[in-house]
């Protein structure tokens, strides 16, 4: 369990975090979203014991990450947004070196490395130098390292960035497995559709403050849904036709968005009958809509 309690962080005059508090419970995957500079990475780094909070505390399974760093760090794995290593090492050697901090050495460290490299899909690169790793491979390596002590808590910072579709699927499965194993997972991401798919709860942070902590069901329920339609041959009447179904937003010359609960099948049928060529019609909304509305309100 990760407990963030009244954490603030100041860099000289800039307040990066302003008295934020939240929990990530065991058996729960929590998405952490916000625009760039909102404070996500700072929060995660403080929770990983890499940064010191100016005030407040973070407890990992009841151990304060600042005061009882060794015990708390054993219980948490961290995958940074852009992992940086001592890159002249071979992957397996650096893994063994880092395993040393968990008092695992020699053959045991090597065997564990091979096992975790297999799990994270980098076994074929175990003897490659880390500087030859792609960004996605580095994240998989960082994940393998974060799994050394089989911690009960994970922190993933923009974990989906730089991953190929296979990597995203891998992470989705990893998160589901962690959840089943009663582990707590906090992950930040810009890909809100994936957050919606993976997370049980979402924490929205903006300018160092928590704006909302919601169950994903609530988010979906509260977000204003819409239908997005792409038409190949729009004319002057199209806006009049679409406005009968709700508020119309012209995204560009041939893409339109209708807000509200509208049947996409019905609109499609009507437009086709009227001679329009509909190339795409989709439901939008959910977390993305919720997030943009929330942030938009704050910006205003």
């Amino acid at each position, binding site marked *: 369990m990760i407990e963030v309690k009244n954490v603030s962080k100041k860099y000289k005059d800039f307040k990066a975090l302003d008295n934020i508090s939240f929990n990530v419970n065991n058996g729960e995957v929590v998405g952490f979203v916000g625009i760039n500079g909102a404070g996500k990475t700072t929060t995660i780094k403080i929770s990983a014991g890499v940064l010191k909070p100016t005030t407040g505390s973070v407890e990992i399974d009841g151990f304060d990450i600042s005061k009882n760093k060794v015990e708390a760090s054993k219980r948490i794995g961290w995958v940074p947004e852009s992992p940086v290593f*001592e890159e002249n090492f071979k992957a397996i050697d650096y893994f063994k*070196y880092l395993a*040393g*901090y968990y*008092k695992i050495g020699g053959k045991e460290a090597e065997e564990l490395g091979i096992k975790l490299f297999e799990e994270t899909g980098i076994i074929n690169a175990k003897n490659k130098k880390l500087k030859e790793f792609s960004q996605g491979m580095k994240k998989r390596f*960082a994940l393998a390292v974060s799994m050394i002590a089989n911690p009960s808590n994970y922190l993933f910072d923009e974990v989906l960035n730089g991953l190929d579709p296979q990597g995203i699927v891998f992470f989705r499965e990893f998160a589901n497995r962690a959840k089943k194993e009663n582990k707590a997972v906090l992950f930040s991401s810009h890909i809100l559709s994936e957050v919606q798919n993976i997370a049980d709860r979402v924490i929205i942070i903006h300018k160092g403050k928590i704006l909302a902590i919601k169950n994903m069901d609530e988010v979906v329920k509260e977000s204003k849904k819409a239908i997005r339609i792409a038409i190949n041959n729009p004319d002057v009447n199209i806006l009049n036709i679409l406005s009968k179904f709700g508020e119309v937003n012209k995204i560009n010359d041939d893409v339109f968005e209708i807000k509200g609960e509208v049947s996409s099948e019905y609109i499609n049928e009507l437009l086709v009958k009227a001679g329009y060529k509909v190339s795409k019609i989709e439901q939008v909304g959910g977390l993305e809509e919720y997030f943009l509305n929330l942030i938009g309100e704050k910006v205003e």
Partner: protein
Amino acid sequence: MSYAMEYDIRRSITKPLVIILLVGLILAGIGVAYLEGQVSLSQITKYSVVLSYNVTSNQTEILGLALNPQGNPIKDAKIFINNGWVETNSSGYFLLAIPSGKSYSIMSPTTLQISGINYTASVSSIGVVNVNLKNKSAVLYVGSYLIKNNFNNITSYKVYYSQESLENLMRGILPKNYTYIGNIYGFSTAKFSIPINLSEPDIIVLLQSINISSNKVPEFNFTYSTVLPQLEVSNIRDTAVSTASYIFAEFFPLVGLFLTNEFIASLRSNGAIEFIASRPITKKQLIISRYIGGLFALIMGSLITSILMPITVSYILNTSTSLATIGKMFGMLLVDTIGFYSLLYLVAVLVRKNFIAISIVLYLILYLFNIMNIVAIIADMPKLMYGTPYGLYEIVMGGFNFGFSFAINYILVTIIGIIWIALPIILAIIIYDKNDSP
């Protein structure tokens, strides 16, 4: 943490650059020491030409006695002196007369030719021959210095003798206690048997005039010094070892710079330290672990050098070395290398960028140009020479004094050495622990 520290230690001592620098500096040191040793050994003089002077208002007479290493006079020898050749008589003597007002030149060592073969001979008012290291005895020849003019009439001297270390000789420190060994009368060369102390190769002879002029001119004292050639060999060994180790002591601290950059500074600069800091380790443990990793390479390097260099130099110069030399070199190399290494750790926790540039500037100031020596000379404060790790090394291993006359204060050396090693790293640990980020 122990596994990780072991790993840091292992990789610090197996870094190719560390090994290359270690081997390269040892070989360079030994090479230079060998050359210096060969040159010095070739210049050792075992033949002596002992001069007596008779200075009058009209002329200066110089009576020379040529002696072989066994102390026997050499007859029919040709000696290059006063820009010309003189020849000894059947008793091994020659006489030069230089008119008053005309200058003359006595150079030592000079060339001594016996049956057409050239030898090198020392030229002085004293000569030590027939040195017996087993019985610790030698024969000392002393030439007189007569002065007869309107003011003085010095015709005899009391002869005193003492032995000193070369270190004190280099520092201009004269003996406090002399042993009276006899008198010398008239224009002659006197011969004395003396005991010798094998550990102090510098023989110092003091002549004190017996006759004092009626015009109350102060008493005449002459001090002569010569180095026992047989003991000089061991000194050449020490000098060569010192030369060899200077090269090492001056450049091996660069290994500390490399290791500090590899182990902490570059990781703080590129952010790689964060991933390590998220392991189950406190920041204090992290910096200590990394420091110890590099420290081991420096200790091993210093130890290998302290053993290998004196033994190799002694071997190639056909002399012997002592445990004391090895111990002293090891201790001073530790101060020299670890002092800088600790300082670099302090720099590494104070700055995140430009570590290498700052470290190189510090290296230039503290090692290559050792600015404290310059400050000591300008301020006329010899103790300032103790101010840097390399300065301590120079003072202890090489007897550097830059013209100042002082004996080595080993207590000061120890205190300053410990401060250099301990203080920067203690500060580095405290500051690093208080930093917000690793």
